[in-house]
């Protein structure tokens, strides 16, 4: 039993660094989606899903790296705050865009190649 605990303690920093790297790669994927999607609604979809997901993975990685309990509690506070406010701000953003009569691209219009200035409207 002690061997298992020693092995877990030895592998913990590596697992934390790996999860942090995975979170960073997910962030790059979300940024590419933000660059390539055609209109506001799809872009915010990519940004908000990736924000919550990549943030959770990276903070779990940092929790595995945390040396003391104080650091771990601060990380948990950051996670809770971002987990609540990320979807809230995305919702407010899309609500404002919809109230400003910004129409989403639907159907054949969305499959047309992008204009050189990078998007619709």
């Amino acid at each position, binding site marked *: 039993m002690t061997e298992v605990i020693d092995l877990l303690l030895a592998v913990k920093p590596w697992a934390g660094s790996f999860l942090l790297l995975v979170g960073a790669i997910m962030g790059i994927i979300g940024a590419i989606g933000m*660059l390539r999607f055609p209109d506001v609604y799809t872009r915010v979809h990519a940004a908000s899903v990736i924000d919550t997901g990549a943030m959770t993975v990276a903070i779990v990685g940092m929790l595995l790296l945390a040396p003391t309990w104080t650091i771990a509690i601060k990380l948990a506070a950051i996670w809770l705050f971002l987990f609540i406010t990320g979807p809230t701000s995305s919702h407010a953003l899309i609500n404002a865009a919809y109230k400003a009569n910004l129409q989403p691209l639907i159907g054949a219009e969305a499959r047309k190649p992008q204009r050189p200035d990078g998007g619709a409207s």
Partner: protein
Amino acid sequence: MIGAASLGLIVAILLLLVRALRGPTLYDRVAAVNALGTKTVLLIGAIGFLLGRPEWLDIAILYALINFVTTIAILKFFRYRSFQVPMVRREDS
């Protein structure tokens, strides 16, 4: 490996900055800046662990708070053209 993660987060921030500068509408820019703020929180934490000073997480908490308030304030200003409007539901909206 934490350094590679920090580099990846910096690359993501640069890509989001391209969208924030090019974005055709206001909402693209606000979405890019919001996502950029979340990535910045993670970057501050990662650099804190990279340099062996995890106390930087205090700054990360502060940045997360400021980021949310900034997004809501920008959206409110560009919808009502003023900060001095109560955010309650009106009957005609």
